[in-house]
């Protein structure tokens, strides 16, 4: 099953290496990882999407990440109500007679065209992974020349639905 894990880490040399190293050392399967600065100076935020077999495995990931000296906080936010977004840039072949067709696909997905050339156009799309995936599938027949995805970045919504059952791994 898929889990979304958020980390706050110290912005120190080698910290990303430590995290990815841990995934390979513990044989965890990672789907995407995105890293960037956070609201605190000197700290970065990492969002990982991982595939695990069961709850025990995801508990292990959380704990092993937490054990890292540079990691300040780890939360598995999968079961919370979250906002998750991914950005993809897609350079697709576009000759004059397909251009309009492509535009008609772009609109319902709220994607946008950020570059156009003689025989191609570059589309930017943001959204949850599934949406990005669906859009790529639709656009594929036109011929994708280049594709770059950022991986999911996410955090919990400001208000959590009260009925939500939250799993707690904390045993401290």
């Amino acid at each position, binding site marked *: 099953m898929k889990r979304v894990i958020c980390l706050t880490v*110290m912005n120190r040399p080698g910290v990303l290496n430590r995290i990815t*190293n*841990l995934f390979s*050392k513990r044989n965890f399967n990672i789907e995407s990882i995105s890293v960037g600065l956070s609201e605190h100076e000197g700290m970065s935020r990492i969002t990982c999407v991982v595939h695990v077999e069961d709850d025990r495995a995801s508990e*292990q990931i959380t*704990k092993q990440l*937490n054990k*890292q000296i540079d990691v*300040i906080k780890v939360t598995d936010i999968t079961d919370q109500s979250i906002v998750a977004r991914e950005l993809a840039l897609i350079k697709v072949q576009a000759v004059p007679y397909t251009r309009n067709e492509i535009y008609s696909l772009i609109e319902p997905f709220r994607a946008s065209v950020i570059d156009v050339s003689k025989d191609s156009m570059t589309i930017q799309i943001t959204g949850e992974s599934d949406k990005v995936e669906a859009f790529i599938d639709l656009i594929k027949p036109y011929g994708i020349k280049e594709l770059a995805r950022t991986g999911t970045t996410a955090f919990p919504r400001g208000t959590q639905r009260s009925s939500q059952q939250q799993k707690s791994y904390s045993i401290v």
Partner: protein
Amino acid sequence: MLQEAALTETKTETESVTGADLLLRALEKENVEVIFGYPGGAVLPIYDKLYDSKILHVLPRHEQGGIHAAEGYARISGKPGVVIATSGPGATNIVTGLADAMMDSLPLIVFTGQVATGVIGSDAFQEADILGITTPITKYNYQIRSIEDIPRVVKEAFYIASTGRPGPVLIDVPKDIASLAAEPPEEQEVNLPGYQPTLKPNYLQIRKLTEAVSRAKKPVILAGAGVLHARASEELKEYAEQQQIPVIHTLLGLGGFPANHPLFIGMAGMHGCYAANMGLTECDLLINIGARFDDRLTGNLNHFAPNATVAHIDIDPAEIGKNVPTTIPIVADAKEALEQLIQQDGKPPAHKEWIETIQQWQKEFPYFYDKETTGLKPQKVMEMLHSKTGGEAIVVTDVGQHQMWAAQYYRFNKADRWVTSGGLGTMGFGFPASIGAQLADPDACVLAVCGDGGFQMSTQELAVIKELNLPVKIVILNNMALGMVRQWQEIFYESRFSHSKIPVQPSFVKLAEAYGIEGYVIQSEEEAEAILDDVLHSREPVLLDFRVDPDENVYPMIAPGKGLHEMVGVKP
């Protein structure tokens, strides 16, 4: 002339120090008594300062020997072992020791030299990316990027290595950082917001465990090395006696609970005793204190403690529930948790029957070996060593059959008398580790119990015990083979002894003599009887080459993939 005068003038004015000065000052501040180090190009600035230092420097004859010695020192003294190696090959030679210390939770501070900051990344002479190499096998690692950071980094490293679950910390020091002069920096505070080990147990869980104990009919305590790291042997004894709970040890935990105590069952695991393994299988409450449910202890997890409620006290939350589902998790220092448990003073449950069952197992299925046939039995050697040293020696072992026989037959009544490579199972560990153990406790009788295979991986360190005149007693259980490999090939590979027999070996006695150390070949019990009293009490190093029965196997044994109850070789 004028220029020179000007130079001396500025010198007196600013009183500048080099990175190496700061490094040694930081070590002195941490009360470091001994450094195990090997010089080389990148650490020359540090070695120049060591020349005038009061700290004892031990020169191993191979960096790997140095780091194993530091491990032995750390295990016995409880203080971090300090190691220095140069860049490149010096640094890569300590990798095995780091992995070993990481697995067995030993505190080490390891300094490696690095090429100058300006050429890092250019594949310079003796450059290796030691941070990249050691990230998965250190608790933490640093590369010093500016002189000002040295005091803080060293302070943090000692703090990280010795608190929480102990482990090795590596500090990579580029050559220019060590040799550059600077003004003494201002004191920097330790800054580790992401590292706050939980020491105090959660009261609710302590209550839960106390209630579980009072309900249990067949409780056992499984005590691991966490008890030793926390210095909690006294508390363990008090708690076990108060609640009348029998105690089982892991390999690394030996000595945490006295072996001559009526509540002591024995060591569990692949070569553990019948009573301990059955105790784990049959118990209804398993209290794990500072052990990590290693696969050599649990056997097949599907058959492990099938009827038990599992409580686990560990300072590392990631160990709880990692291998065995746990009902009562207690993240805490073993000593603090035990103190609180003792305070609860729970009503001791009535389980006299359970203790009697265990004692019956002990009586019926003790460790055994064939005492009738001629030839020197390795088990007998360990028994003799035990009686001749009154069970008081520090026993340091290598890895293999002799390690298991030492664990089975040398019964430890005191804590911190046992040094062995458990998790990583590092051959070549034992002899160098004994050097560190002897330095940590100079008056103790230290036995370096090795096989003929493992000893040949670190014979060069004979020079060190001669140089420092350390009275280490090297005990070689010589069966002309890599015994444990041979045993597995005999049992699981139809006796196809592929490259496990080593009939060509040096005369170990002559080898010792070449280093100026006395040595004896011992081929029978009588010969052993004749000299052991003398040599074991001498204050000189000595090598004892015991020619033991080459076909002897370690029993009982649990085959890989089998459960603890599926032991073979429990009876003659």
